[in-house]
């Protein structure tokens, strides 16, 4: 599979006087798993939020299947349904139960039949082992449980691309594994995944390609072996050294 699904071209994002993304060029192919690593504040999350249009790019372009998502006639609602997002802080809908969290978006956005949507939701909640909790409200769940529901919610939209914004950073260590397992189950099923993460071991195991970001630019990218075993750039080496020492 070499057909590009998302192409980021000369993307620049400025908040006030602060340039967060300088000039980003990134092509992600359909079915590919790309991990984005780098220091906090290097622009990883901002890149992801621009791809999903939660932030409006200052300049540059983003293509989805070759079409600019910034074009005036582009169907953003449809695009967002096809490019799901999993957040660091889960963002489950607090007013809805676990089941409703997974059913409502399907019915609202995709206009799916409620019975069909429920069936789909139950299957997905089953794969993340959250089916016993379908009647619970988000407040009553642990962080790991919430994140697994959030993954099921994003999956339920049958997306082509899933964006993960530091999905395990807000979790206690013992809960991380369940969430990573849920993500591993999704990998190599044809779904395209872009993952912003600090879990280096996970990134190495799951990714087809790893992107290292530094100060608003992509400093280096390559296969996991290249980046983790033989990084070319000094900044990459310095960053990874700190992580490996810590481990």
């Amino acid at each position: 599979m070499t057909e590009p699904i998302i192409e980021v071209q000369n993307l620049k994002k400025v908040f006030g006087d602060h340039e967060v993304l300088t000039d980003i060029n990134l092509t992600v192919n359909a079915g590919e798993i790309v991990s984005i690593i780098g220091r906090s504040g290097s622009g990883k999350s901002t890149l992801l939020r621009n791809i999903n249009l939660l932030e409006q790019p200052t300049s540059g372009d983003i293509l989805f299947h070759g079409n600019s998502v910034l074009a005036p006639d582009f169907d953003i609602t449809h695009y967002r349904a096809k490019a799901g997002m999993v957040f660091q802080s889960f963002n489950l809908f607090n007013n809805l139960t676990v089941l409703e969290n997974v059913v409502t978006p399907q019915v609202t956005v995709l206009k799916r039949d409620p019975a069909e949507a429920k069936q789909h939701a139950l299957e997905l909640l089953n794969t993340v082992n959250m089916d016993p909790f379908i009647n619970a409200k988000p407040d009553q769940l642990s962080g790991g449980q919430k994140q697994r529901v959030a993954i099921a919610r994003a999956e339920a939209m049958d997306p082509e691309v899933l964006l993960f914004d530091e999905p395990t950073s807000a979790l206690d260590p013992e809960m991380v594994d369940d969430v990573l397992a849920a993500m591993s189950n999704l990998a190599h099923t044809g779904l395209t995944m872009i993952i912003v993460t600090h879990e280096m071991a996970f990134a190495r195991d799951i990714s087809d390609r790893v992107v290292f970001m530094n100060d608003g630019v992509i400093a280096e990218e390559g296969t996991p072996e290249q980046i983790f075993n033989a990084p070319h750039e000094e900044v990459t080496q310095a960053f990874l050294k700190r992580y490996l020492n810590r481990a």
Partner: protein
Amino acid sequence: MTHKYWLFMIALLMTLGLAVAPGATTHAADNSTTLKVGMEANNAPFNWTQTSKANGAVKIDGASGYANGYDVQMAKQIAKQIGKRLVVVKMSWNGLQPALTSGKIDAIIAGMSPTPERRKAIDFTSTYYKTKLTIIVRKNSQYAKATSLKDFKGAKITAQLNTYEYDAIDQIQGVEKQSAMDDFSAMRVALTSGVIDGYIGEIPEGITAATDNKALSYINFSQQNGFKVSADESDLAIGVRKGSTLTGGINQELAKISQAKRNRLMKWAVAHLPATSSEDGNWFTTLLKQYGGMLLQGAGMTLLISLVGTVVGFLIGLLAGIIRTIPRPSTAGKRGLRALANWLIAIYIEVFRGTPMIVQAAVVYYGAAQAFGLNMNRTLAALIIVSINTGAYISEIIRGGITAVDAGQFEAAHALGFTHLQTMLKVVLPQAIRNSLPAVTNEFIVNIKDTSVLSVISVSELFFSAETVAGQNFQFFHTYLVVSGMYLIMTFAISRLFRLVEKHMAGPISYNLAENH
């Protein structure tokens, strides 16, 4: 807030003011088949409210109870002669003139004298009753034997606000002039309790007070020892709009009614005053038996207005919340529209939060009629005013509720492809409403109490009914005690009810694990 914004607001308010200012009077009503007559229905023996249609009483328009008295019988005769159907509209004394000039009523028959000040605003027919001033006193006081105004030196005397009786107090040398009071019922209570030594009224009021209350009597001054009043003041006439076509017809009919007939009618009126509460039996049961229906109807009206007002205000608040959170659109045209909508909402909130509801009621009801000839039903006007007023407050409450919802909730919904409206309806507002519910309950309770200001436009809510009852039975303390109990029951029931709703919205504390498949 920018300077421009405030300049705009002030300009808008001034434009509104100018639009309402010209006192264009409406004449349309004069040609209708009904004769709408305004009176207090609380000024016996001229006019009073009773609970049945006995003795030829007339149903009061849009309220419970029947009006009767000298004025009502006079109005009946005149209406019949000029071929119109009589409609009696009950309103406060100070509401009579604006109601007439704004076309809410066609004539004032309320024991009103044609003073020069009043003649500037409205026209009067010829006299329909000629009266003389008296002072009503306690029978056991030193003033009971007075024969001349000189005997009232040092006495505490009052009269009704905005009447020539009140101005006449100045003719008594060395009198202790007290602040004016609202109506005769209040003055009678003040007199019996010893707060004042006497009050000035016309002879019919003297007859009525003395008949009603054995402890009171009135002084029949001779021509030279009594008050000097001009014919403008002692002669009671019927108020009509300036240049009204009714004047000629009414004057013709009045000419046919002789002085002897008028005196007989006044005697009849005094004799047929509704019986004041009998002393036997428990005051509480007597009050309920006699006026319970009227008070319950008033409570029903209060509940209706505050319920509709709160519900509609709540919907306005939700709508404002949806509009104010619309994300910044990409095209300039839509951005302009959004800015305009936000501006209008801000102005609406500032104006209706920044002016008293009693003033809004007067502007909407009397002002709209006077300036634009817009004749609104009183209950409808009340519903509109309370809804719009409450909407301004609830908009801000909901805004606070939305602010308290985590930004991640918006982001997650947008990231899933929800439109703004879907985001608000399915995710944000349910949470915002839960956050705002205690404050909305507060608004409802405030509305229950604040609808009492609507008595200014004569809406027969609970407070207006209470005034009527107290004006009939003179049991101020007992009546208002019962009425405060009724208010308390309503507000307490509402606060409990909403507590239940809050609990329900919070959902169960624990959840059941679903069975494993």
